């Protein structure tokens, strides 16, 4: 015999279940736009039936409905896929962004890029080769040199600035990881507490934890597993960052780049300082675009360094072999002044790092000397060879070379040299005159052994005079020649220098010319950036696709929620109606029966 009021209980359970379901619909709608939210469902189950023993048999009477659980609509496999691919996306996006910044540091192809500056530098040398005696052309060469140095140094500085930006972003990323892992640890605790016994589901906490995983996997690839209690264990390349037992904090340490001396931030495990490697995600992207010698900042600094080394070693070498208008030679165009270090000499450059080449690149300060700087630009390949006229055409020919700066102004000085000869026709002494043979000077500063190499100093110039053969020298033979500011107009070394920039190949530059080296570097940069952009684009499409899949499980659909709302509202209404019916039945029973005789 069943209880009279059993039906009331059944209906109350029904009302309650519809209410909870409606509440959940409300929760879903409220969170439709919440990041990481997954749709929740109320799982209803019939309660245990009551066995009624009737006259002939017993039968089961249903006792209503119960809320057995509220669960998330979620597909963990799609989540895992999302986490994996979002790491790759994070990597690609970072690479694309950083390569874009490197492109910015070179600003090609524009009128301000290094290529244009190189062309102007070359043009200046060509102009000098045509107008070697023109101090305007010399000034232009020097200033274009400064411009080239500035362009290279400017790009270098921009690349170095990028490194310090990257370092600070790495710091921020490490902090973010630490925040995520400590929050995951506390979420682990709460989830395990709530879910003990296996009936409750900590839906919203799990949503929050999965959202944190979305954020973490954009930064780095992580292996995420769930243990049987509900703890997430997060591993990055074998290092457990967080699990049910605790959190491994990360921190950064500083070190110095051995080549360029800029600061490097390295990510290590706090406490032990054990380094941790990253295989994907934004962090790996940052580290690669900072340290890679192929497509990272370091690689492009190395290329600028190679160009600087080329200018210091090979371009300088040609300049050193030439002569200035003051007949100075062995002067560097680029690099240090004073002791004139020969950059091709290993002794000078021993221990030179890649960075040293760039920092050594400057235009030789000596060329800025207002008195004789411009004269030191070596536009010609040979020192002054001076035409010598002999009085005795059968005598020993003489060659005259000069060094030093002529102090006689713009007019030339005519010099007569008269030799005296001993009995065996050896030159036994010389004297010279600068006034057409009126007065003779014997002030010979030095004389070598025969064949004599005489050295005289006339108006600031050191004149070296070599008299070639003895046989037909006659006593009193004179040699006449004139001294002046020098053979200014020869630009043959300027041609060689301009060839050095455009045509000559170099082993340092991988067998190409400076122009080719630079343009292929820019081409490679463009291709790397384009590649990164294309891969990122594809990856974005993939991640979007996966997000759509995920959304199709966990997302909130308003139509669906509204339908459910109607369903549960009507369910509630109907249950209430049953209650009314029962009420009427009971009313009939209680108030309408047993009224006989009243």
């Amino acid at each position: 015999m069943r209880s009279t009021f059993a039906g009331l209980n059944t209906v109350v359970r029904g009302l309650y279940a519809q209410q909870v379901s409606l509440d959940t619909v409300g929760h879903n709608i409220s969170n439709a736009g919440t990041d990481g939210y997954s749709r929740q469902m109320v799982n209803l189950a019939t309660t245990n039936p009551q066995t009624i023993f009737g006259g002939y048999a017993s039968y089961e009477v249903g006792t209503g409905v119960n809320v057995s659980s509220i669960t998330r609509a979620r597909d963990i496999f799609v989540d895992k896929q999302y986490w994996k691919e979002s790491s790759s996306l994070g990597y690609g996006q970072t690479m694309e962004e950083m390569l874009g910044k490197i492109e910015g540091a070179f600003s090609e192809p524009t009128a301000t890029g290094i290529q244009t500056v190189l062309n102007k530098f070359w043009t200046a040398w060509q102009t000098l080769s045509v107008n070697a005696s023109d101090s305007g052309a010399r000034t232009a060469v020097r200033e274009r040199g400064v411009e080239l140095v500035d362009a290279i140094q400017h790009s270098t500085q921009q690349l170095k600035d990028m490194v310090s930006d990257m370092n600070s972003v790495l710091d921020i990323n490490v902090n973010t990881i630490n925040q995520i892992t400590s929050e995951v640890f506390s979420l682990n605790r709460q989830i395990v507490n709530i879910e003990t016994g296996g009936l409750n589901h900590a839906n919203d906490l799990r949503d929050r934890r999965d959202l944190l995983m979305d954020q973490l996997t954009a930064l780095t690839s992580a292996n995420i597993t769930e243990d049987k209690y509900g703890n997430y264990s997060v591993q990055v390349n074998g290092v457990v960052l967080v699990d049910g037992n605790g959190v491994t904090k990360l921190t950064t340490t500083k070190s110095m780049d051995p080549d360029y001396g800029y600061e490097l931030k390295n990510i290590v495990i706090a406490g032990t300082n054990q380094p941790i490697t990253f295989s994907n995600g934004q962090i790996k992207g940052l580290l690669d675009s900072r340290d890679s010698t192929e497509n990272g900042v370091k690689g492009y600094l190395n290329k600028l360094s190679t160009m600087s080394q080329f200018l210091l070693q090979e371009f300088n070498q040609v300049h050193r072999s030439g002569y200035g208008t003051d007949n100075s030679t062995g002067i560097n165009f680029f690099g240090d002044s004073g002791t004139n270090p020969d950059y091709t000499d290993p002794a000078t450059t021993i221990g030179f790092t890649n960075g040293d080449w760039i920092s050594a690149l400057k235009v030789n300060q000596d060329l800025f000397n207002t008195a004789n700087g411009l004269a030191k630009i070596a536009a010609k390949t040979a020192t002054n060879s001076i035409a010598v006229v002999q009085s005795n055409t059968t005598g020993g020919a003489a060659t005259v070379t000069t060094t030093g700066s002529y102090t006689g102004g713009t007019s030339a000085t005519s010099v007569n040299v008269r030799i005296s000869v001993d009995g065996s026709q050896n030159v036994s002494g010389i004297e010279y005159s600068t006034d057409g043979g009126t007065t003779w000077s014997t002030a010979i500063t030095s004389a070598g052994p025969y064949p004599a190499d005489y050295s005289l100093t006339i108006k600031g110039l050191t004149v070296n005079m070599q008299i070639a053969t003895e046989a037909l020298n006659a006593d009193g033979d004179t040699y006449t020649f004139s001294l002046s500011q020098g053979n200014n107009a020869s630009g043959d070394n300027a041609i060689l220098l301009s060839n050095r920039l455009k045509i000559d190949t170099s082993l340092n530059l991988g067998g190409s010319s400076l122009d080719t080296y630079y343009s292929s570097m820019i081409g490679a940069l463009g291709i790397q950036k384009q590649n990164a952009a294309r891969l990122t684009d594809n990856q974005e499409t993939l991640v979007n696709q996966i997000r759509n899949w995920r959304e199709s499980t966990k997302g909130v659909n308003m139509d669906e929620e509204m339908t459910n709302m109607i369903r549960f509202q009507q369910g509630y209404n109907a249950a209430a109606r049953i209650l009314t019916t029962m009420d009427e039945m009971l009313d009939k029973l209680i108030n309408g029966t047993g009224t006989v005789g009243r």
Partner: protein
Amino acid sequence: MRITNNTITYNFLTSLNKSLERQNAIQEQLSDGKILHRPSDNPVKTIRSLRFNTNLAQNEQFTQNLKDAKSWMDTTDGAMSDLSSIMTNIKELVVQASTGSNPQDAIQTIGKSVDNLINQIVTIGNTKLGDRYVFAGQNDKTQPFTRNGDIITYFGDSSKISMPIQPGVATPTQDSVNLSGVEVFGANGNEVLNHLLEIKQHLDSGTTEDQVWLSNTGLGYLDADHASILQSHTELGTRMSAYDMALNMMEGQNVVITGDVAANEDLDIPKAIIDFKTSESIYKTALSVGARIMPPSLVDFLR
């Protein structure tokens, strides 16, 4: 697939952003008419752009070198013509002086004229282009000829000045633009002048013996010297025509390279504008579709 409100929002935003990106790219190109703004826009075209612009700079420079060389040679040419006519003048005077009927003072007067003409020759020898002496060899900042009484000294040298008109090494025999004093005036740069001075001395003295010397040795000197001056002049003329041809070629090449540069990096503007309009209309459509499609759901119909 089950579609949710967020799916629609994400996808809408993604495609809206793509359409904006495309529009931004075309806008950047339209703003300056160039299709290249960074190497990654088109790496191959970027390398070609760098190379073409280098070629252009090279061509312009060699054209400039050629023009410099030509103005040098034009100056030299003018001076040589003047020199030639002065030599003819002197010869006329000497022929006149060497005919037997001249009184001594008439010959001496001719000597004065020749003396002036020698001064003119020295002036021509000191011809300058800008601040460079064209007949001084490489010693071009020093005045090459000075006359001190009857001594004329040459302070230049016999070196060639080369002006490169193509990549590579300049070869003095091919690419030189100057005539040095030695080439024009013989050994030591003053042989011809010394001959003229000698003639002048004989004219100054003006005796019958001098007249005989003038008609024999003097006129011989003049003929030989004028011939050698003409020879250098002719040599210069040949080089000038070679440089003219080279200049024509360079200017032709300049047109070709400029065309290459333009073809490589200039934007096809009509096409870009059509692309721009297309992407603009796609963007607008996306926006209006978004505005219509996004909100309606069952919510709107439940009252």
